[in-house]
């Protein structure tokens, strides 16, 4: 083989191999999404697991690996993955919102609250963080705190029923029946068939 042929072959490989790898990665992501949609979380996680250590999307792969482990009930692996994502990017709100889920599944309400409050310190009206924090306050049975939180948040999201459900529960657990009824009635205006609200109001 002449020198020219060798140089040409090497140049072609240099162009084709990264292109092939990119195409393969693209398939990996789409295949992983498809497997997740079919409930095959373990296989979906296994596909993107090699991408966590390098490449442009290693951070996304790490976050997704955490999410897919959470869906499998591998809460400790999920927490570990989200912590890795945080080590990589300490500004990540995604990682903080994500790690709250397995922590909440393990009823580690205080630890989950800590991460959610960190999100709210950066993004004070982040709806997802607020709703998850309210779930933690419910888990900790901090009814006064939950009532104040839900009442304040409902001013920012006046059309939202979920916040009013938390408000109603907090009032109900404090024995404030009239306030709880009023909150559940507001829930029913927004979601007319809401089972929990109907059940409480029919008591």
């Amino acid at each position: 083989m002449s020198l020219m042929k060798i140089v040409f072959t090497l140049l072609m490989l240099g162009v084709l191999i990264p292109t092939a790898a990119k195409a393969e990665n693209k398939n990996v992501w789409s295949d992983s999404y498809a497997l997740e949609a079919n409930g095959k979380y373990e296989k979906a996680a296994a596909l993107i697991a090699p991408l966590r250590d390098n490449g442009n999307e290693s951070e996304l792969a790490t976050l997704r690996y955490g999410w897919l482990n959470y869906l499998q009930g591998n809460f400790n692996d999920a927490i570990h993955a989200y912590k890795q994502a945080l080590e990589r990017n300490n500004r990540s709100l995604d990682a903080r919102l994500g790690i709250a889920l397995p922590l909440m599944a393990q009823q580690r309400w205080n630890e989950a609250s800590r991460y959610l409050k960190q999100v709210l310190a950066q993004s004070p009206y982040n709806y997802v963080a607020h709703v998850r924090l309210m779930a933690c306050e419910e888990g900790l049975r901090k009814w006064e705190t939950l009532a104040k939180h839900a009442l304040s948040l409902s001013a920012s999201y006046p059309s939202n029923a979920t916040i009013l459900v938390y408000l109603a529960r907090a009032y109900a657990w404090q024995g404030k029946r009239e306030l709880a009824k009023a909150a559940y009635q507001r829930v029913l205006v927004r979601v007319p068939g809401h089972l929990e609200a109907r059940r409480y109001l029919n008591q």
Partner: protein
Amino acid sequence: MSIKTRMKIYKKNGALTLGAMMTLFVGGHAVHAAEGDWSVKTDLQAMYGNYSGSLQRNSLSSSGVIVSADYLDKGGFSLAANFTRLTYKASNAINQQGYFANGRYKLYLDSLPGPLTLMLNGHYINNNDITGNTDNVKVISPQVSFINYAKTFYVDFGYARSKYQHNLSVNQYTPTLGIGLNNGADWVQARGYLIQVSNPLRAQNKSSTSAIDVKWSHWFAPGSWHHMEKMQLAGLFGERIYAVDNDAAAVYNLADIQRGSLSLSLQWRLTESLHLMVIGGNERYLNNVIGNAYNNRFAYIDFTTNW
């Protein structure tokens, strides 16, 4: 990029909270990495008991404080101190100081549907007992427990080794089972007390005792007319001597043979962070040496504050 860390005690919502606050500055982006990670609880408690039918004993009074600190949901420690005074009909009172320390750590394993808690308890007691028999008591007591996330099943196994002066050591085994019923409104728990004594002469001729402590707890629905949060009925059946109760941070070093008890506990949630508990009950005892059976009718009060 600069990272500054600091610890401080800060006030939040009017309540003093011990918080480890680490502030990170990342590219001018401040993130509170840990805020209010420690939660602190204080128990102030007092008890008075009057002996009925005892040939020797008159009354028992006790007061104490327990401070507990927990780091997030991972574990924590408790420290307690109490002062107890036992008065006799015909001899000098015993004044006693008791100290208690507890460390606990939670393990969350995906293979288990709930956390495992590893706990180590220690007790030290000194008093002015002129015989020295109940003075300088040391207890070490490990325990492992499990409760499921649904809070319908609890199991633990505890061990306590007590060392008394003048050739006496006591081994105690306490297997426990708890069941949650009625969507968490009721809780039934039974704890066995299997106690082996190294020197029966020091234990009213008992080489071993066994008893079972049964508790039924009921949480009331909110809005009840009595505003009560919880009620508990407890009964002890069987016999026990030199028992160690880590839940109550108590060692029964001054007691004769306990032959059963019955108590009723009522608890109110005064505010989100303040609870009041009162207990009234009766304990039956036997002094085997002089053949004297008697009762201790007691009342107990406890204020718990979460900081």
